[in-house]
């Protein structure tokens, strides 16, 4: 990974769109993709004819009950007689799709790219979570009958043991995010809750309670990304993609220290280096770290070097990451507050930073002035770290 000083054309995000995030939607997956795509195109003042390439992100095909899911979503995502590709790194896909669009444009192959992330989890019977049975190694892990929440619980327990964090400290993240989400029009699980509510909710896999987890969700998010020249014609306030980073760790998560996500750290370093950021904890103004579970936001804040390892849980207590704090995180409300349609969640976070950097986030706008932002997503068996650095 090296900085290319000859690259004159930058890549920008010029539009974003979102559907409501729902527990179960009436719309089909293609309709969800279309709604988000249409909104993104409208916001950029473009039509489908203007688009050169389409990049789709969607996680396990098994949720929708489709094989070749990308092909199925193609027409809803505008890929009629266009180059279309589907990239996939599990939950990391949400942030990875705009990263992939970055090299579509920076390579000179495409000028205007429509980025769509969609997920419809509700078709899965009897409960979408059962689909996660198939992510495990068929021989060494599946016979033990694992549930996806086990792996997060194990990581949370390790983080608590190594860093001295308690459940009530970690629950503050859920409280913060669900409250932030009250101002988000797409939010599914926004609420004004207390730490007590979290601790009293159903214990799924100790130490994880129901309110520590983001919900099963249907939804779609879309972005329009273009080269610099095109961006300047479309808008006075393009949001630049300064850095991208992505890493996939090995599959043997039980051979690794779970208290710190080094795969995310590698991806973050890659993105920061490309963006020319040397002290992220000082230079980043707002962040959207991936938060499928409350402790995961802390884990990722540390992986992104926005706080030192094992320090993030202390800073939450001080309000450091609140919207009016020093380094606001998840001002959107994150996955905990808005919802977690696996692939679309990450793109929702990128869309949020897009609006924050243009001062268009309305009631969710963070208090301090914003110039540089970072979003990350996570995926697979504690493996995928995808990071994107944006600026205005």
């Amino acid at each position, binding site marked *: 990974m090296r900085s290319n000083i000859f690259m004159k054309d930058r890549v920008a995000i010029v539009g974003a769109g979102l559907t409501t995030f729902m527990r179960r939607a009436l719309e089909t997956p293609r309709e969800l993709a279309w709604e988000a795509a249409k909104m993104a195109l409208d916001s950029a003042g473009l039509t489908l004819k203007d688009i050169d390439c389409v990049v789709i992100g969607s996680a396990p*095909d*098994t949720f929708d009950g489709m094989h*070749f899911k990308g092909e199925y979503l*193609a*027409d809803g995502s505008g*890929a009629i007689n266009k180059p279309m590709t589907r990239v996939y790194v599990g939950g990391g896909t949400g942030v990875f799709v705009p990263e992939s669009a970055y*090299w579509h444009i920076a390579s000179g192959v495409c000028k205007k790219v429509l980025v769509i992330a969609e997920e419809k989890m509700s078709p899965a019977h009897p409960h979408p979570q059962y689909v996660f049975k198939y*992510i495990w190694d068929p021989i060494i892990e599946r016979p033990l009958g694992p549930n996806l929440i086990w792996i997060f619980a194990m990581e949370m327990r390790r983080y608590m043991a190594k860093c001295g964090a308690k459940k009530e400290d970690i629950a503050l993240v859920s409280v913060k995010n669900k409250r932030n989400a009250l101002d988000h029009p797409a939010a599914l699980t926004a609420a004004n809750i207390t730490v007590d509510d979290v601790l009293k909710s159903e214990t799924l896999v100790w130490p994880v309670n129901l309110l520590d987890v983001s919900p099963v969700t249907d939804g779609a998010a879309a972005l329009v990304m273009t080269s610099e020249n095109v961006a300047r014609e479309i808008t006075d306030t393009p949001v630049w993609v300064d850095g991208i980073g992505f890493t996939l760790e090995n*599959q043997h998560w039980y051979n690794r220290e779970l208290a710190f996500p080094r795969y995310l750290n590698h991806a973050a370093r*890659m993105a920061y280096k490309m963006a020319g950021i040397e002290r992220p904890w000082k230079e980043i103004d707002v962040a959207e770290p991936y938060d499928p579970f409350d402790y995961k936001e802390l884990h990722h804040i540390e992986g992104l070097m926005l706080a030192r390892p094992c320090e993030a849980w202390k800073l939450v207590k001080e309000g450091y990451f609140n919207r009016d704090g020093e380094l606001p995180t998840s001002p959107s409300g994150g996955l905990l507050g808005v919802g977690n349609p696996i692939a679309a969640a990450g793109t929702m976070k990128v869309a949020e930073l897009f609006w924050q950097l243009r001062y268009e986030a309305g009631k969710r706008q963070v208090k301090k002035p914003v110039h540089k932002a970072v979003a990350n997503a996570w995926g697979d068996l504690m493996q995928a770290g995808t990071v994107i650095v944006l600026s205005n």
Partner: protein
Amino acid sequence: MGVLMSRVGIVGAGWYGFKPTTIDISFQDMMFESSARAYSSAKIDPRYDVDAFVDCQEDMWEGIAIADEFAPEPIGGALRPTFTVAGDGLEGIAHAYMLIKTGHFNVVSVESHGKPSEIKTLQDIYRFALDPLHVRPLDYVNPLFYAGLDAVAYMKRTGAKREHLAMVAVKNKNNGLSNERASFSTKLDLDYVLSSNYSIYPMTNYEIAPFSDASITFVLANEEYAKKLTDNPVWIDGIGYSTETGTGATEWHEWGKMKSFRNAAIMAYKLANLNGNPQVDFAEVEDRFSFMELLALEETMLVKESEAHKMLEKGDFNRDGYLPINPSGGSLSMGIQLEATGLSRLLEAYLQLTGKAGNHQLKNVRRGLVASWRGVPTYTSMVALLSV
């Protein structure tokens, strides 16, 4: 603009398998074997010299939700920039091409594999790709009927006869006899084909590619690195991919044509700064259904519309003909390896251009075309233009 003008070349390739079953080896071990061979042929250490790793897989072929979990370790991508493209291997090559053209990545590896022998319910997986609301409930026997529909429409439009489709199978199955990767080649006469029962009208079993297991890895590099790493890089002059429509919206598809091949070819030729016919010496094109070889040649503009079957009859596409097509025997004799099929075609073209095609080596070939399709029920195709 200096970096954008730099070419992208293939500096190494490796493969493992190309057999109907590979029961003694797990899919990950196959990935390790093919990637180890590729890195060795490029003389690089993937842990230090490769900047990004692209893997091409589809969940439902693998039997594992989130198949990219098992991708990094065997291809050398653990804790490195690795990702999965849910598409054909040639789409992965397109990503690698773009990554290198950004100037931020110098060497990128692309792997894809298929292990259809492990899928016990292959037909059902195909069925699972059909539109769940409008097509799946129709309760037909074989989901590959889409190919038959396109074949019939193609024949009507171009005047190609049933015999021409059979001739493709005869040419390819016989070509494969000299290719160690063609497990399904056989000495075939035209009357054997014409006297067989139809499998999917208007094609017999000879004209529908069977399945085989394989893993294939390629190493790509920018011009500077390519020249350092090897004496005979194969340049990717252009690459394109396109989707005509989604699998739930077949009403947009023009039956008897494959617009996605045409759009992909146009994209590839534009990147190669060409107008129209790319003037290649040979081509490895999609032939998992016999008629598709002829259609692909016309849509990629290698031959004029409705001319392919006439040229085939004259022998122009034979190994000793004017424009050898699928000298390797194509998928009809090598089998299809699911998403790795595009890389199989690319591998055969790469071996031709580097003089390593052994018994089926063509003479004096410097430019080649590769065209691949994702198969029923998709309308997505990929085209790559290569030269040395």
